[in-house]
């Protein structure tokens, strides 16, 4: 079973503060993704990556940055957190270039911005 882990699992932040969400995968997948989940919206793509050193904007990138320092790690960074970024964040990995269209999700990070 493919393995994706996230930290922290829960985070409370203050408005204007910096938040870093971390994701690690041991699947050796090239692609990694950050989604946020909100009621009534399903999961929406924030940023994604094709491999180490690569980050690309997804559908809702405003207010977020991403970093992919290695094949295994992919971080989501909120430089100036706002209450509208209160959500559940999921990281996922997949390897569509190798016919692995299935994405494997981490357990999620619940973020509350006060």
């Amino acid at each position, binding site marked *: 079973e493919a393995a*994706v882990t996230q930290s922290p699992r829960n985070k409370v932040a203050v408005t204007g503060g910096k938040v870093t969400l971390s994701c690690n995968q041991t699947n050796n997948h090239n*692609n990694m*993704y950050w*989604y946020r989940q909100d009621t*009534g*919206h*399903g*999961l*929406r*793509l924030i940023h*994604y*990556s*094709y491999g180490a050193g690569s980050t*690309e904007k*997804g*559908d809702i990138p405003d207010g977020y940055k991403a970093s992919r320092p290695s094949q295994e790690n992919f971080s989501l960074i909120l430089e100036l957190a706002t209450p509208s970024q209160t959500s559940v964040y*999921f990281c*996922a990995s*997949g390897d*569509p270039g190798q016919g692995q*269209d*299935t*994405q*494997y*999700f*981490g*357990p*999620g990070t619940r973020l509350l911005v006060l």
Partner: protein
Amino acid sequence: GDSVTQTEGLVTLTKGLPVMLNCTYQTTYSPFLFWYVQHLNEAPKLLLKSSTDNKRTEHQGFYATLHKSSSSFHLQKSSVQLSDSALYFCALTAYQGGRALIFGTGTTVSVSP
């Protein structure tokens, strides 16, 4: 652009009854469809996937058939169990965006005894 539509937000039913969750999609590319299931406070997990037209795919008692003519990929089960209570997402692979998934808004299934 590409999109996925799930029409039911909440489905409530009694154990042992059949269920069908609707999923339609729009894409200009060859579609690859998924059903993911998410139990409370857990990660979404793959339930089914298909890119083959008119072929039924099954897993854990659930089944779905991709119909390209009607752009549909409805999820069905003939007899639901209490453990099937969860949030179900239909998703489509995007051909841009690193082949990320485009999700529907999800359908919550609540099964009572």
